[in-house]
């Protein structure tokens, strides 16, 4: 056997190799962050949008209460709702579009040819989405708390879990949707439109009445469940559980399906037209 082959496969990343690769994830994360925040459109759509909507919707009826959500102040509903929006926007909408653009412009091909391991690249992308989500949630909670007197959750762990599950699963959905988009031009329309239709159906702008047909439809999709999972930790003062296990489970199932599609269909080079 060719000795080159042996040394080629007998080099698993462990010990110093693993440390080096984790450092590489951190480096790559830095450039993912730079690229995200410097892409004004993407950053505005994700972070700016949720802040603006929270301000507009809440300012127009901040102190009204709604029966649908247990006679809570509406802003108490919108704050976690837009936090969930931020996670989904960063991971599904933004990542999906960015991946299509990177694929079609040949950036993914370049990365594939470089020595960076695939897991390092995707680890950095995931970590970058988590950072964006954290920044976003922190921003919304601060605005909610200080502008509208939103009551913050006392089970922070439940919120953090919802955030983590949301980041992982919606990132998988973002990768999966990028693989069905054929071109750069159709990335925005396909991804953003599907996102907004689901948001609309899922009660981001107006809480869904339990048992309504809209609630039944949105029950099959992950968007509504992530909103509920973000809401639950805030609701626990009313005696409900802050851990929305069922909803997180549904989101996780979607994440798993998306991961399978993403792994099977992922392409590193531009589509031929």
């Amino acid at each position, binding site marked *: 056997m060719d*000795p080159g082959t042996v040394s080629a496969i007998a080099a698993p990343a462990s010990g110093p190799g693993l440390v080096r690769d984790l450092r590489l994830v951190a480096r790559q994360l830095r450039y993912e962050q730079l*690229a995200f925040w410097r892409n004004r459109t993407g950053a505005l759509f994700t972070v700016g949008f949720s802040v603006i909507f929270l301000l507009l919707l809440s300012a127009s009826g901040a102190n009204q209460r709604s029966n649908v959500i247990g006679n809570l102040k509406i802003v108490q509903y919108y704050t976690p709702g837009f936090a969930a929006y931020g996670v989904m926007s960063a991971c599904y909408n933004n990542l999906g579009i960015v991946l299509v653009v990177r694929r079609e412009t040949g950036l993914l091909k*370049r990365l594939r040819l470089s020595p960076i391991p695939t897991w390092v690249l995707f680890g950095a992308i995931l970590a970058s989405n988590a950072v964006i989500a954290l920044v976003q949630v922190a921003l919304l909670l601060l605005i909610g708390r200080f502008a509208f007197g939103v009551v913050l959750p006392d089970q922070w762990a439940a919120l953090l879990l919802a955030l983590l599950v949301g980041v992982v699963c919606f990132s998988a959905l973002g990768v999966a949707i990028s693989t069905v988009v054929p071109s750069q031009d159709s990335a925005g329309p396909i991804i953003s439109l599907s996102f907004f239709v689901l948001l609309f159906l899922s009660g981001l702008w107006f809480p869904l009445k339990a048992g309504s047909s809209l609630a039944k439809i949105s029950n099959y999709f992950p968007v509504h469940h992530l909103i509920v999972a973000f809401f639950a930790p805030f609701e626990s003062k009313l005696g409900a559980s802050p851990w929305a296990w069922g909803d997180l489970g549904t989101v996780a199932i979607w994440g798993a399906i998306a991961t399978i599609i993403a792994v099977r269909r992922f392409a590193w080079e531009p589509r031929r037209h």
Partner: protein
Amino acid sequence: MAEPGATAVSVQGLRKRYGDLEAVRGVSFQVARGEVFGLLGPNGAGKTTAVEILEGFRGRDAGEVRVLGYDPASRPRALRERIGIVLQECAVEPYLTVREVLRRNASYYPAPRPVAEVAELVGLAAMADVKVAKLSGGQQRRLDVGLGIIGRPELIFLDEPTTGFDPTARRGAWDLVRSLSDGGATIILTTHYMDEAEALADRVAVIARGQIVAEGPPSSLGGRDVSEAKLRFRLPEDCSSTSLPVPVHEVGDLLEVATTDEVEVLHLLTGWSLAEGVPLLGLSVERLTLEDVYLRLTAGGDAGGTVGAPGALADGVPAGRSAERWTPAP
């Protein structure tokens, strides 16, 4: 790292099919360490496909491939750390600056070149803090070249490195290739420019419709150095060509002799000219240019169609010309 001595790349019977189209149809070649190897062929010949298989980007359907001792099919990281790649289409993150992109990619390699040195080498030192989106097409392309060499590669793949360049930029790119080669790197470059292959490559393989139709140093490609020369001249109006000491044929208003021994033919003709007092007007001697060879080798057939038997070229005489050949009897 154990690897077979002086061979950087060896390819044996390589095949690759896209659906119904067989883009690479049994290609074999070797590249020695330190060599500049040119893969010369028209668009669609299969150059990029072949190179991308060597880079580990694409799988293959058949054939044996070794690159620096590795099989690239499994994309070993150790191999990717030792090769440098410049793609036919460049692509660099628009939102990062030149320095950021170089620094980021440098971190992928165990012993990268200093970022400032690379920026200097590709002439972007003054633009180090400019965002990639603000660079001109040529500057982006140069940055792409910089990314290709930042890891101190032993083997560099350049896929049509000067396509779309203006003449000055081309010369610059050629100088860079030469300096990389002088630095000891092995270089595989694809091109459809004959002059580029001639200027840079130690050895060239001409590829057409997925097959190699000729291989050798550019100076002797397709038997260019041993094939016949063409002597051309005119005779004054009132002279007939029948009294000439060698058989000629008419090409336009010129008379032409094709021969592999132009010295003897010239001697016969000029001797006759002086003895008879008949001038040989506009006498010229011409050898096949690399372009002639290339055009003949790659002519005919659609992409994917059958290729003329390469054997017809084996003796260095392009098919269809042997009837006109004349060699003085000993």
